[in-house]
């Protein structure tokens, strides 16, 4: 797809889509949505970019190293957050029991570990979407060439 109008519109909209995705991830415990939905939105902004501008430019925006790192580190981050509970002598993934500062309901940094766990899940979902899409897309282009 090399359409001029599509490219210009995407250039205006897609950065906001990406930022909105991170907004949904970060506000998962305050408003509607959550880390899964936010991760999908972040992944979608990259998928739309590589569909419109071509896979090469898309890959340049999201290097393989970053993608691999996010792919591997998302779940590990979840595990590390679970270890906070164990280090305080309470069960795995405990939140209130672990004595984490829960904050005021409605504030951005409320809910204790929920905020950090949600960040890990969001990165995880986004990297999964992007990885699957890039893999499928690349194979197609190689077969065509």
């Amino acid at each position: 797809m090399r359409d001029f109008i599509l490219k210009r519109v995407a250039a205006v909209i897609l950065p906001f889509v990406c930022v909105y995705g991170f907004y949904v991830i970060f506000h998962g415990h305050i408003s509607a949505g959550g880390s899964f939905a936010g991760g999908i939105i972040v992944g979608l902004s990259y998928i739309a970019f590589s569909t419109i501008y071509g896979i090469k430019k898309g890959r340049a925006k999201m290097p393989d190293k970053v993608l691999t790192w996010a792919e591997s580190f998302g779940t590990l981050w979840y595990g590390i957050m679970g270890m906070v509970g164990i280090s305080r002598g309470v069960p795995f993934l405990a939140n209130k029991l672990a004595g984490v500062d829960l904050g005021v309901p409605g504030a951005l940094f409320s809910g204790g570990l929920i905020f950090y766990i949600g960040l890990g899940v969001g990165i995880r979902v986004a990297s999964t979407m992007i990885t699957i899409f890039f893999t499928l897309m690349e194979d197609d282009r190689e077969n065509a060439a």
Partner: protein
Amino acid sequence: MIKKLLVLLIVLATAWVGLLAIAELPPYGMPDNPVHNQVSERYINDALEETRAMNMVTAIVLDYRAYDTMFETIVLFTAALAVVITLKTDKKELGDGEEEGGR
């Protein structure tokens, strides 16, 4: 023919047992259903106090059921892994294959 009739009979019998079980289910959406037990009550009454997260769904998914969500992310990891293993072609490997095909 006899075999087909027998199979039909077994299918109908199984369906009959299933329908009997469904007929025993409580009516949908009634307040005194066994689904509405102390678990949902606890979530509705205490979720805000216990997690301080305003979105109750997130509180359940990422706090009460955090262990479940952790393995959900591992399911995502496995899905990406399967796609990459099945479809990713190493550039070098591909070149070798083409050379061998040429010979």
